[in-house]
C-alpha cells in the first residue's frame, strides 16, 4: 500500500525514456510520481559524460549535469543498435503508457524503435518523440546543439548587449531542452487524457520539434514583426525593443546588480511619490520634484521617451548609492517589481525558499553528505511532487527490471551483459 500523502499526481503512469533530448520531460514526469525507466546505452547517457563531476573527477555516476535532470528515475542499459535487444524491448513495451523518445533521427535504427511498429505491438502507447527539428521537413536531419537551437529559434537575437559589436547571447543552462521538455509534457499528458477519457481513442505518436518550441518562446518579438514589421534590438540586461531604451539594470554600492523592471518608473503616481521620498533621504531626487514630470509620466498618453529616460536614469543613479539587498527589499516594500540579480547559489540561504520547502534534500553518488536539489516549481495540495530517489547509477535497475520483472535468469542476464546488449 502506498501512503496516500505520498501519491503524486501521475502515480501509476509507466514511462520508458530513451535518447538524450527527453531528459527534462522524463524528470518532470518522474518527480510527479510516474515510474520512469531511462534506457541508456551501455556506456551511459550523453549527460553522464558531461561535467561538472563530483570533485571534478570523471565517473559516469558522478555527473552533476546528469544528476540535475534525472532525479526520481530508474536506469537500465540496453544497446538499441543491437538487434539482440529486440527481445528485451518487446517485453518492455508490453506494459507501458508513454515512450519518451529523445533520440535524434537516424540513431534509432533498430526496427522496433519504429514508432508505428511499436503501436501495433501495444496500441495504447503514447509515443512522444522529441527531435531537434521535427520528424518531417527539409531540416529534419540537421545537426543541432543548444547553442544552435537558441540561435535559430530567436532568443539570441533578442539577448545580449547594447554594443552590437558583441554577439547575441545564449543564456547558459540548456534552455532549449527545458523548453522542449516542458512542451512535450503538455502534449503527452493531453494525449493521455484523450486516451483515458475515450474507449475508442487509443495511443498515438506525438512529434515535438525543439526548434518550434524555442521559436514559440520569444514573447514580444513575434507581434512586433507580424503586426508592425518591426524588429527588436538586443539591449544590455533588459527587453529587446524596436527603439533604444534607457537601462533597467545598475550596479549598486557593493557591486551587485539590481534590475529595475521597466526602468524603475512606478505605474502609479502614489508609488512614485513614495519613491521620491526614499530618494530624498539620500538627496538623490535630482530635479524629479518638478511637477511637469508627474504630469508627463501619469497623464500623457504618448509616454514621452526622453522624459521617461531622464527619470529612469535619475532613479538608476540613486540606487548606485545603496547596497543591492537594501535596494531590493525597500523597493519591494513599495510594491516595485525590482529584483536582486542573484547568482543561482545565493538562493540556497534565502529563508523564503526554506519556508516554502522548495529544496529537496537528497543523495548524489560519490558525495558523502546530502545535497539540496532544486525542487518543483509547483506545490500540489494533495498529491505532492517530490524527490522519489536520487539519480540512478548507470544500469542500477537492470537486475530489478530484467530479472525481477521480465523474468530473465541471472545466467541469461550475464550473457546479455557479456555480449554488450545490456
Amino acid at each position, binding site marked *: 500500500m502506498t501512503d496516500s500523502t505520498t501519491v503524486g499526481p501521475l502515480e501509476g503512469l509507466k514511462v520508458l525514456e530513451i535518447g538524450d533530448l527527453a531528459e527534462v520531460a522524463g524528470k518532470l514526469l518522474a518527480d510527479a510520481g510516474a515510474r520512469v525507466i531511462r534506457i541508456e546505452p551501455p556506456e551511459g547517457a550523453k549527460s553522464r559524460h558531461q561535467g561538472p563531476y563530483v570533485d571534478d573527477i570523471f565517473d559516469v555516476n558522478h555527473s552533476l549535469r546528469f544528476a540535475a535532470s534525472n532525479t526520481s528515475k530508474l536506469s537500465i542499459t540496453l544497446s538499441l543498435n543491437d538487434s539482440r535487444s529486440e527481445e528485451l524491448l518487446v517485453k518492455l513495451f508490453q506494459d507501458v503508457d508513454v515512450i519518451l523518445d529523445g533520440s535524434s533521427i537516424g540513431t534509432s535504427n533498430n526496427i522496433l524503435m519504429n514508432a508505428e511498429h511499436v503501436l501495433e505491438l501495444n496500441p495504447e502507447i503514447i509515443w512522444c518523440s522529441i527531435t531537434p527539428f521535427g520528424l518531417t521537413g*527539409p531540416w529534419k536531419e540537421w545537426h543541432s546543439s543548444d547553442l544552435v537551437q537558441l540561435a535559430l529559434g530567436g532568443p539570441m537575437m*533578442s539577448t545580449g548587449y547594447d554594443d552590437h559589436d558583441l554577439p547575441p547571447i545564449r543564456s547558459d543552462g540548456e534552455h532549449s531542452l527545458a523548453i522542449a521538455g*516542458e512542451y512535450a509534457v503538455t502534449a503527452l499528458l493531453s494525449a493521455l487524457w484523450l486516451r483515458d477519457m475515450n474507449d475508442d481513442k487509443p495511443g498515438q505518436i506525438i512529434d*515535438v520539434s525543439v526548434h*518550434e518550441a524555442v521559436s*514559440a518562446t520569444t514573447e514580444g518579438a513575434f507581434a512586433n514583426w507580424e503586426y508592425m514589421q518591426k524588429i527588436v534590438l538586443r539591449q544590455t540586461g533588459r527587453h529587446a525593443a524596436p527603439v533604444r531604451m534607457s537601462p533597467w539594470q545598475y550596479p549598486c554600492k557593493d557591486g551587485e546588480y539590481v534590475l529595475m523592471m*521597466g526602468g524603475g518608473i512606478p505605474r502609479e503616481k502614489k508609488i512614485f511619490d513614495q519613491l521620491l521620498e526614499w530618494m530624498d533621504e539620500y538627496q538623490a531626487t535630482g530635479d524629479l520634484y518638478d511637477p511637469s514630470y508627474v504630469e508627463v509620466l501619469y497623464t500623457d498618453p504618448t509616454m514621452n521617451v526622453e522624459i521617461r529616460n531622464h527619470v529612469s536614469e535619475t532613479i538608476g543613479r540613486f540606487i548606485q548609492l545603496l547596497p543591492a539587498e537594501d535596494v531590493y527589499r525597500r523597493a519591494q516594500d513599495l510594491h516595485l517589481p525590482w529584483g*536582486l540579480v542573484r547568482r543561482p547559489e545565493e538562493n540556497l540561504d534565502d529563508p523564503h525558499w526554506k519556508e516554502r520547502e522548495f529544496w529537496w534534500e537528497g543523495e548524489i553518488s560519490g558525495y558523502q553528505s546530502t545535497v539540496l536539489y532544486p525542487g518543483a*516549481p509547483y506545490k500540489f495540495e494533495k498529491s505532492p511532487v517530490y524527490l522519489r530517489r536520487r539519480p540512478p547509477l548507470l544500469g542500477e535497475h537492470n537486475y530489478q527490471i530484467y530479472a525481477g520483472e521480465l523474468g530473465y535468469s541471472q545466467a541469461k542476464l550475464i550473457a546479455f551483459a557479456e555480449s554488450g546488449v545490456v
Partner: protein
Amino acid sequence: MYSESSTDKPLPLEGITVCDFTWIVAGPQATRILADLGADVIKVENESYIDSMRWGQQVDPENPSFNGSGFHNNFNRNKRGITANLHHPLGREIVERLIKKSDIVIENYSAGAFARMGFSWDRIQEINPTAIYISLSGFGHTGRDKSYITWGPTAAAVSGCTQMSGFPDKEPAGWGYSYLDHTAGYYGAIAALMALHHRKNTGEAQYVDISQIETGMVLTGVPLLDYQINSRRYERIGNRSRYPAVAPHNTYRCKQDNKGRDSWIAITVEETLQWNALCDLIGDSRLNDDPRFKDNESRKNNEDILDEIISEFTIENEAQSLMYRLQSIGIPAGMCQRTDDKMESDEQLSFRDFYPSAPHDHLGEHRYEGYPAKFSDARWKMERGAPLLGQDTFDVLTNLLEYSPEEVANMIAELAV
C-alpha cells in the same frame, strides 16, 4: 499522418472548461496552451480588472483600443472572453456559475489578490468541489516574501537566470524578454494537466501554488550542485561551452545581411569528424597544421585564437548560406535568426506550417505562433484570435451558464457585465 487540415481529428482537451482570470503574459501563456489543445477557456475581465496587456504594443497607436494589441492577440487566441462586474451581485453570480461549470480555475494575480476579490480556495471549493485551482504568482502564496511582486525580468534576476547570461568580464546580459513568463506559463499548463490526471484517478480536486521564480530556479540545477559539492561559484561563459568542454563552440560574425544588419552564426563542434570537416571547408592552413588545435583539449586551451581564425572566415560569408554548407557536411550550425528570418525564410518552420493564420474581429486576418507538436491522431487548433473585450458574454451566459436572454439584458442594464 500529420495532416493538420483534417478537423475530424479530436482536440485532446475538448470538454474541459477553464475559468480564466489570468492577465499580462505568464497566465495567458498557460491558458493559451490549454485553449490550443481544445479546452473551452473563458477569460473573465471587467474594466476595473482588465488585462493590461490589451494596451501593450498597440498596432495603431493613434487609435488605441482594448482590442488593438497584436501582442495580446497572440497570447489569447482560441479563448472566449466575457465581462463580469465583481462589484455587482449579479456579476459575482456570473463568476460563481462559471466556477461551478469549470474543471480548472486559474489566475496570476499577486498572492492573496484573488481571495480578496472573494475567491479564496475555500470559497472555490464551496462553489464547486471538483474544480482544480491553479495560482501563478512571483514568490508563491507562502513564505516570508510572498507579498513581493515580479514581472518576468524580476523573476529571472532573483532566480539566477539573469546572472547565467553574458560574458564573464561584462555585466549580466540577462534575457532580452520575459522568458520566465513563458516558463511559468508552461508549468501552469503542466500543473493543470497533472491535477486533471490526479482527479481522474482519485476523484480529488486540489489547489496548486506555482511560484514564477521557482520556475527559473529549477533551471539552475547544475550550478547549484556544483556550488554545494565543488564550492564553485557560478561564472558566465559567453557563448562558449564549459560542460562539455568543447571548442569551437561560439557565435561568429558573418557578412551583413541583405537589410544591412549585423549577422551571426552559431557553430558547435563536439566530434573529431566535425572538426576535420570544418577545417576542410575553411581551408586555412593555420587550422590544419597548428599543434594548438590538434585535439579538443588543445583547441579548448587556445580558444581565443581559434575563434579569431574562424571569424576571419565567417565574416566573408553570408550567414544563411554558410549555415546550409556547414549542415551539409555534418556540423551543427545555425544563424542567429530574427523574427523576420523565422517567419519569412525559415524553410523548416514554413514546411511544418508553424505560423497558421486566423481571423480577429478588430485586427483582421493574422498569423500566430503555432503549438510546437504534431499529433498522429489528434490536433491542436488555430481557430480565432483573442476575444474582443466581452465579445462572448452573451453567448457564454445564455449557453454555457444558462441565463435567459432577458436576464442578460437586465444585467447589461444594471452594469453587472
